[in-house]
């Protein structure tokens, strides 16, 4: 026969499991803590599919695909991308963008997920916004947002959009 003490213990365990499993499910509409991978939601200026959402160790063929002598190195790509993003962390001034170009290109050579970074920075460098009047292509502004998004979500670097 099962002792009353054993029954009580089992009941307490069941209650604990039920209670904790209920806690594990977020309630509808619950506020969520934003993590770096989901914080920025600005739409990238690149068409869907132009950049892999995950680091790729086997880049697809393309004009800028690393050749056999420069094998993809995601870690080196990330490090170079972080340097590029840090160069523009304070904003997209002409000097900052110019300083970011080389590490961005290095990042793309090592990992194609950074190709949009170098493409966008190249466009921004070649089509700057006039800091005195605000005149310039809309694409430059949108690319800057996309770069900031990419830097935060994939390189963990906050780039000013303010």
């Amino acid at each position, binding site marked *: 026969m099962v002792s009353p003490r054993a029954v009580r213990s089992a009941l307490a365990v069941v209650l604990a499991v039920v209670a904790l499993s209920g806690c594990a499910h977020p309630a509808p509409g619950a506020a969520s803590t934003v993590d770096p991978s989901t914080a920025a939601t*600005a739409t990238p200026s690149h068409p869907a599919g132009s950049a892999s959402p995950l680091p790729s160790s086997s880049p697809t063929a393309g004009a800028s695909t690393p050749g056999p002598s420069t094998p993809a190195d995601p870690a080196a790509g990330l490090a170079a991308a972080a340097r590029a993003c840090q160069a523009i962390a304070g904003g997209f001034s002409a000097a900052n963008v110019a300083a970011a170009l080389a590490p961005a290109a290095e990042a793309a050579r090592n990992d194609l997920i950074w190709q949009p970074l170098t493409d966008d920075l190249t466009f921004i460098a070649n089509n700057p916004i006039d800091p005195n009047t605000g005149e310039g292509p809309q694409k430059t*502004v949108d690319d800057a947002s996309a770069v900031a998004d990419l830097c935060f979500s994939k390189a963990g670097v906050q780039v000013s959009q303010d």
Partner: protein
Amino acid sequence: MATPRRTRRTIIRAVLLALVCALIAGLPLAAPDAPATAALAQPAESVCVDTCTNVPATAQAAAQSLMTSYGNGTLIIEWAERAIIPAEIQPIANGTIGQTPQCNIDTRTLQTLVIIIRNYGSVQVSDLNRHCANDGVATCGSNPTSRHCVPSTGPNAMDITYIGGARTRGNDSASSILLRFLDSFLPNGSRAGQASGGDNCGVYSMPGLANISRFTDFCTHIHVDLGSTTAGLRNLR
């Protein structure tokens, strides 16, 4: 058979477990808004209805309303950006902004500030168009792609540091209340710059929004802009 004493102990355990569950699951949903609601100077709409009625339709009319608000202390401009009034809002209100077009502000931004003042009683602003008013650090030279600097026809960004006497740092309950309200009338594609949670700003927790996306920003203010959309404010009556 269990003794009454043991039964009571089991019930107490069950109640304690339920309380722990409620603490984990329930309180984060209810807590954030309470302090800011208490701090706000007047009852506010959570969805723009009355405050979206008869909003000034033109930039000049909205700027005139803001000049009135500035005069009675319900529009407050931070000292470093005090040129916002003489260089930006006053010329728009006077109809002379054409002489300094680089100082213009998007009509929707002016309307939004009018609505915020109506709803919360007051607003404190730290940045609008940086071409003509800035703190010397955050300038259009340092970040020309900022929505405080583009488009050339009139930037649409606003940095807000208080609503109705409640501080808005981007990651707090007052910012959360403001964003829900703004989400009810800003055009889809609008954006909010908020603390990332990684810059000593504390826990970053915000409501789900339908029309405003987010980017990371420092927690000295809540940044709001209209992105690249040219759509007007929604739900104006």
